[in-house]
């Protein structure tokens, strides 16, 4: 990242993820600077397409595409799935699928170029690797379920709806933080 290279002097945060590999991982960007870049990307999305960003919606549609391939009759009998993949409707025919694919490509490219790509499992000091995988799966399941209930995840609701002043998105955002903080104390051994 040349942008990051030129900005590096501005950033004085120490490297947090030492890889131990041959190439040293570069430090992450200053959070405010990353936020400004995020804001510019989000604005560009609204400005060009009229839509914000999204992630779980793309995951949803890829899943429904799988269901539609394996059990099309079931999809045609379930109202929620019908809307995305009923009959001839192609669930992949949506901008959010492509944003999601882009996130994977962009995340990989940036990680690779900055020497931060590494096969590893990030976990708290008191959690075994297998335990961490299990917790990640359980957390993911909660997250996936909640995201569909709320009609959007952190990207699609909090970021996108927040920037265009949606009342529901702001209420949602506070609820996510409230849920996290409410439980944080009780699960502190997972992370410390």
């Amino acid at each position, binding site marked *: 990242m040349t942008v990051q290279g030129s900005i590096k002097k501005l950033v004085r945060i120490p490297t947090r993820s030492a890889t131990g590999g041959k190439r040293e991982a570069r430090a992450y960007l*200053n*959070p*405010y600077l990353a936020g400004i870049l*995020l*804001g*510019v*990307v989000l604005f560009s999305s609204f400005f*060009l*397409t009229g*839509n914000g*960003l999204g992630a*779980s919606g793309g*995951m*949803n549609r890829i899943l429904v595409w799988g269901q539609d391939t394996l059990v099309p009759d079931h999809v045609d009998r379930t109202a929620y799935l019908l809307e995305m993949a009923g009959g001839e409707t192609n669930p992949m025919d*949506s*901008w*959010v699928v*492509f*944003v*999601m694919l882009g996130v*994977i*490509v*962009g*995340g990989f490219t940036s990680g690779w170029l900055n020497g931060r*790509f*590494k096969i590893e*499992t990030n976990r708290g000091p008191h959690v075994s690797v297998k335990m961490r995988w299990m917790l*990640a799966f359980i*957390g*993911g*399941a*909660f*997250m*996936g*379920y*909640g*995201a*569909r*209930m*709320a*009609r*959007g995840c*952190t990207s699609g609701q909090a*970021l996108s*709806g*927040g920037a*265009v*002043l949606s*009342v*529901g*998105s702001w*209420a949602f*955002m506070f609820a*996510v933080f409230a*849920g*996290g903080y409410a*439980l944080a104390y009780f*699960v502190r051994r*997972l992370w*410390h």
Partner: protein
Amino acid sequence: MPFPLNLEDLLGHWESYLVSLAIGIAFGVVLEVAGFGDSRRLAAQFYLGDMTVLKVMFTGIVVAMVMVFAASAVNLLDFNLVWVNPTYLWPGIVGGLIMGVGFIIGGFCPGTSLVSAATGRLDGLFFAIGAFFGIFVFGETVGSFEDFWYSSYEGRYIIPEFLNISTGATVVILVLFALFAFAFAEQMERIFGGADLKKAPKWRFGAAGTLLASAVVVMLIGQPDTDDRWNTIKDEKAPMLANRDVQVQPGEVLALMRDDRINLILLDVREEADFNLFHLLDAVNIPADKIPNHLKDFRAKSANTVFMVISNDEKAATEVWKTMVSESVPNVYLLEGGINNWITVFADADFKTATPVESRADDALAYAFTSALGSRYSMANPNPDVFQLEYTTKVKLQAARGGKSGGCG
């Protein structure tokens, strides 16, 4: 207001998604350079020692917000066409609480887990698989609590409407709120994370000042009202009225009334008294001065919707046409010659000779009605086989541009 672009027309259907792909790549890069591929960094948010999540998120939100409303203020971006997540208050709050639980247990949100998995993190991969599982379970169970899932619906509902203040003032308040949150976050990092604030870059104060100043400027310019909007599109749209491109002849309206592929809305904008005397079958009566209250609903109609604005002659209908076109309602037309011309074309000879009004004001009824029979006249729904009318086709369905569905649609 040239933006958002009609990408489907410019690039083609599937090709237009390349723009989304590019935006997604940029989004993925930003999430990665922010450090959001590392679950420990994300979870740290909830233990107050490292508030990166809050800083990045709120900065992103307020920067995008200021830019969106600045672009809208100078008539570059049509905010009516920007997708605003509809408010379903309680499903959003309950879903948010569930997500908060998932966040602290799993250490990610869906987007960041993808970045994490893409940079080799196995916990990110397991989280993403779990998210797929959760989404699957939701799809299979939502049928059992659909009433709740569709409850507390407010549609497109933004904070300025909720607080009853201007959009610009809301932008300033939210920027101040974010700056306050950042100051709070930095104190938390100092107390719980041992961060030395003197080592934090000084440019962040300049950036905060610039952001706040921009928000104040956005507030001072204000958002465009209907008249401002008409003035920016007048050069393009006024000739359509003058060339009579949008005044639809009765014969075509009659054909549209029988076209099942078109969702035709016969929008009768006369006063209720005139409407009660006579109107077209299935016409809806919204007097011209009440139209502004319905624009949001009009914009939310399906893509095959055609609005046919109707007044006694054309005056009121033309004004309503301008309002609706200015406010980004697609596919708006008006009935040529209004109700009076409709009666002239479709009423039987007896009615026309018995009831003409001698002298009348512009846009008043040209025929006298003795009773308020509404649409219970045969001319309210004429038989097209009897009237073999010739007409020039004017109605062309335009693909709507702008945001189509929410972040997770």
